[in-house]
């Protein structure tokens, strides 16, 4: 699209013009663009000039940030950190919580034998995440903590803000359980 007008005034004028003269006009070429009262929009056009847009151009060198252009010193490694085969060096910085452990850890280590380009990498990690949930429950119980799963799912908020929905869900669960019980009982009776 070409913008031939420099001033807001000209734009307003162009739109008025369009209304007066109908179809053979600039407005026709601005398909489907109804006039907007720009003065009513706080800050309209403040960054119309691309020079005002901080990420223009996309890659900007040199950067404006005052940062040392030397590789950071490596962080001391005390726990197992898995490394993608697509960037086979340990990065100088990394997160250290929740190192791989247990069966989920075995799956995660296996996942990191494949690249990020390999769908098995991601599927194994998702599987490991599910196994990890069971491990989390076992861990809670092992230290004598029975997790309040309803509270963890925010049942208090559900009760406060979606009581009808909660009642319906409970009714559906109760009905399914009831039917199941009835069917089982009937089968056992025969």
């Amino acid at each position, binding site marked *: *699209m070409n913008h031939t007008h420099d001033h807001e005034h000209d*734009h307003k004028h162009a739109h008025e013009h369009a209304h007066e003269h109908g179809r053979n006009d600039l407005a026709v070429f*601005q*398909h*489907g*663009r109804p006039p*907007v009262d720009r003065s009513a929009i706080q*800050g309209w056009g*403040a*960054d*119309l000039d691309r020079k005002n*847009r*901080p*990420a*223009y151009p*996309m*890659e*900007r060198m*040199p*950067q*404006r*940030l005052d*940062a*040392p*252009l030397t*590789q*950071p010193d490596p962080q*001391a490694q005390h726990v197992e*950190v*898995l490394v*993608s085969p*697509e*960037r086979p*060096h*340990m*990065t*100088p*910085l*990394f*997160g250290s*919580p*929740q190192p791989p452990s247990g069966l989920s850890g075995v799956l995660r280590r296996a996942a990191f034998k494949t690249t*990020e380009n390999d769908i098995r990498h*991601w599927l194994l*990690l998702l599987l*490991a*995440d599910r196994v*990890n*949930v069971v491990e*989390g429950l076992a861990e809670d119980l092992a230290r004598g903590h029975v*997790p309040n799963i309803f*509270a*963890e*799912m*925010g049942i*208090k*908020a*559900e009760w406060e*803000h*979606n009581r009808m929905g909660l009642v319906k869900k409970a009714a559906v669960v109760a009905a399914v359980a009831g039917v199941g019980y009835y069917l089982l009982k009937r089968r056992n009776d025969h």
Partner: protein
Amino acid sequence: MLAMNYRGPYRVRADHKPDPVIEHPGDAIVRVTRACICGSDLHLYHGLVPDTRVGTTFGHEFVGIVEEVGSAVTKLKVGDHVLVPFNVFCGSCFFCQRELYGNCHNTNPQASAVGGIYGYSHTAGGYDGGQAEFVRVPMADVGPTVIPPDLHEDDAVLLTDALPTGYQAAEMGDIAEGDTVVVFGAGPVGIFAAKSAWLMGAGRVIVVDHVEYRLDFVRRYAQCEVINFREVDDMALHIKKMTDWLGADVCIDAVGCEAAGNAMQTITGPYTLMQAGSATVLHWCINSVRKGGNVSIVGVYGPTFNAVPIGNALNKGLTLRMNQASVKRHLPRLIEHIQAGRIDPKQIITHRVPLEEVADAYHIFSSKLDNCIKTVLIPPSARQTRAVAATALN
């Protein structure tokens, strides 16, 4: 310390965890005073992002007070009040030198496609996040920005992700004067993308969502037109009708991998994980934009593949741009916009919740209850400090 603790899909709680420690001479420990829950946290909360380990603390949007600094930190001081961009980045690698801070190559050993992000799974570096009383902040001289005294803390916390991401979404759309911009998603990022589209000179801004209260909010806040896609048969056709059969100049995907609106996409995406989330909004963007138009993607997708109509994108000659926001690039200009009154980010905060109630806060946001737009979590230590300060004043 008290911290949010992920236990599995749809299950989180506030738990006591060990305080974070300095692990690298460039680190700082920040005492969190506010942390947001982000729409993209929901993808973790729903178990859709690979390598989200049980016990992780989420939270990539936080502000706080510097509590401790490592031996190599020279610029940041204990007591500084800082906002911390969601990217963990070094400032010195190949990508940081090009101001692509969202793509830092030095902070995430576990994946090459994504840089480090606080509290965003081990795929994003395995860092614990800021929905806690304390958080480890690597490269403390590079990442954190000291909050100017006249900037409200609630505005500051929205500068860590939501506002810069919305702004960058508009910027990647390369909006020219008078352009028609369609933003998909009326969450915080979509709201700020719509607002930013006006700053860049849009002639028309249309926001699409299916939650009525969110549409009401964005219509008022960003003075835009809105479409509830539940009331529309075919999104691309609808946009074309609205634009004299040309299509929009710019389409922005501010939704990502859990888009509603197409059963097939939902089943193959979030339900069965056969693709990295439902690509519904990508389809709508590519098919609703005009030929030669721009599609900008900031909605989060998983790392696996997606069914995307790339043939249409080719035939229409589209420009597709996408990235995690390089927050630090945008801060000076966005702070100017806030100070000049062009944008008032804190208005989108609807909920302020004690960190102890994190499970309810996630549920409210995830289920879109109580007209929730944006939730801020406040840790107990932050509340105590404020109580002490208030007592001192009396």
